């Protein structure tokens, strides 16, 4: 049978019909599409920054300290209270009776008349201004976007992975498995978020992006767990799962081949909700001192720096970071809503 041969070839490459259906529904939501566009734009920035195409030398001191914005987007009059920077020329006080073992070496080196490296010219204004060291706020914002986005995304992945795995087991198997996992869940949720964060931070005892991700991931899984457990409990006795059982599908196959695709829209929505909430949490973590390390920059670290700067009238860092964050978070939220609508099984 020619036809069945041809079909057989295609069988292996089954199209993702439901997802494409959701996609076409999403395409009808103009606002959702715009939001998606914004998110994709940010994603491009993140990738470009990660690849080092943009904002590579964000830590380069391009402008003078607190250089104001030059009016492209914001404008501010240059501050008059520039602090005088004068390098003192030192006449070392002579002290008798103490020998400096390095003195001979230093003298010879000094005699070879080393030229002090010329400080490069620094700009008086920058598009979005400069921070206290004179680093370009625009580049910092771009780099911060990369960090915050990655932190949000990876932490969300971690929490969703953890929450859905545990939730799937608890909801699917029920009984003692459910009791134990539920016990862990209720223990975790009974402890207030702040204390849990502080406690986990104390355990990890390290700072940096990976720590932030771990803290957020390890504290953020409970919501996903609750949802996934409920979904699995609901689906576990659905007829299609029973049908799978009656044709001899194993537990793992039923859990991950049959049920998982049917709850994946919940996961996707949870994922994007968590991305948003984790990007916001990163700011709070930074405030608590569990932010990213000094060799990188995130929106949280920028906002924390900007806190006192605002009172000094240096508002541009606060404005840049807040705007960049608000735009992405808004777009992401709108996109999540659109996604939820598009994936809503009720609308089928």
């Amino acid at each position, binding site marked *: 049978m020619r036809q069945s041969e041809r079909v057989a070839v295609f069988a292996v490459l089954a199209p993702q019909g439901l997802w494409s259906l959701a996609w076409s529904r999403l395409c009808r939501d103009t606002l959702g599409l715009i939001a998606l566009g914004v998110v994709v734009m940010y994603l491009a920035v993140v990738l470009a920054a990660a690849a080092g195409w943009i904002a590579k030398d964000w830590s380069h001191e391009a402008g003078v300290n607190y250089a104001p914005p030059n009016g492209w987007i914001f404008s501010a009059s240059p501050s008059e209270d520039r602090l005088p920077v004068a390098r003192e020329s030192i006449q070392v006080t002579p002290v008798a009776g103490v020998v400096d073992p390095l003195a001979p070496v230093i003298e010879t080196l000094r005699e070879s008349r080393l030229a002090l490296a010329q400080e490069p010219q620094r700009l008086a204004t920058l598009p979005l201004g400069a921070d206290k060291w004179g680093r370009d706020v625009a580049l910092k914002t771009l780099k911060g976007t990369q960090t915050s986005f990655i932190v949000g995304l990876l932490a969300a992945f971690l929490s969703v992975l953890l929450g859905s795995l545990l939730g799937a087991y608890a909801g699917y198997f029920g009984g003692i498995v459910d009791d134990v996992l539920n016990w862990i869940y209720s223990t975790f949720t009974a*402890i207030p*978020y702040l204390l849990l964060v502080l*406690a986990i931070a104390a355990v990890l005892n390290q700072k940096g992006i990976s720590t932030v991700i771990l803290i957020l991931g390890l504290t953020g899984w409970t919501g996903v767990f609750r949802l996934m457990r409920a979904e699995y409990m609901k689906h576990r006795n659905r007829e299609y799962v029973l049908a799978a059982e009656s044709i001899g599908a194993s537990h793992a196959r039923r859990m991950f081949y049959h049920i998982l695709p049917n709850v994946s829209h919940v996961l996707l929505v949870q994922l994007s909700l968590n991305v948003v909430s984790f990007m*916001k949490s990163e700011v709070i973590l930074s405030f608590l001192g569990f932010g990213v390390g000094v060799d990188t920059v995130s929106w949280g670290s920028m906002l924390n720096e900007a806190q006192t700067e605002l009172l000094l009238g240096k508002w541009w860092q606060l404005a840049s970071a807040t705007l960049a964050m608000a735009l992405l978070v808004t777009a992401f939220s709108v996109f999540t809503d659109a996604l939820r609508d598009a994936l809503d099984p009720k609308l089928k």
Partner: protein
Amino acid sequence: MLSYVLRRILQFIPTVIGIMLLVFFLFNWVGGDPAYLLAGKISNPEQIENIRRQLGVDQPYYVQWGIFVRQVFTGDMGVSWATGEKVSYLVWSRLGPSLTILVPMLVLSTGIALGLGLLVAYFRGLATDRWIMVACTVGQSISILVYIIVLQYVFSYELAWFPVQGWAQEGGLLLIPFCILPVMVGVVVSLAPDTRLYRAFFMDEIQRDYVRTARAKGLTEWRVMGVHVMRNVFIPVLTHVMIQLPGLLAGSFLIERFFSIPGIGREVLLAVERSDFPVIKAVTLYVAVATILVNLLTDILYRWIDPRVQLK
């Protein structure tokens, strides 16, 4: 009813044990050594040893665990390492200010969000709905830190409407000027997400058959929404409000810190900075137990608000 409550409380025991294990593990086992902080600027090993002995952190873990269990069961969580204050008293005295901010905040934001949710659900699909939702989405995308900094700056300093921060020990009406701005910040921050959520609750309920029945009975649209739908929406709203209550107690630390409100959240931050473990442990446990009790209360309230729920 009573037997239900008793049985529920019995069921809490494993959770409480879990929390105790976690707390003990975190603070007694892997938590830092507070002796050096307490020893001050100039310390020597004997002094460190002395402090460790005084605090009981030199004991084997099983002994420490025993002490901890006894503390939990007697309700006497010892004294703060930093101030020597009784921890139970400390937590108790910080509860008032926290609640003074939290309760009005929760009532206001829930009330306003319910109203807005009803409004946008009523106008669903229309421009009013769209714009309020967009405003909410934008509103919730800004960090609470920015809200606090900017609102404090604008309202206390530029406009000078409220005191910058502070607290009236005497309590009562004197507190009102100090409360307004923190409560306002809290409401502003939680209003946007709450409205979005409550709108979703309303939209869920509106699709139900009983709404069609109510309309078929010839009730006005406001009665359908404001009585029939609203009463059903109360159920998920109640869950939402109750579930976030204990977390707020410790979670409003940012507001408490910026407005110098002597509440629990600020105390926790202080204790963490000082490695004051008895305080952190006690707050964690108390709040955890409060969470559990609030859950129980929620279930009891459910029976009152949702006749379908039976307490068994």
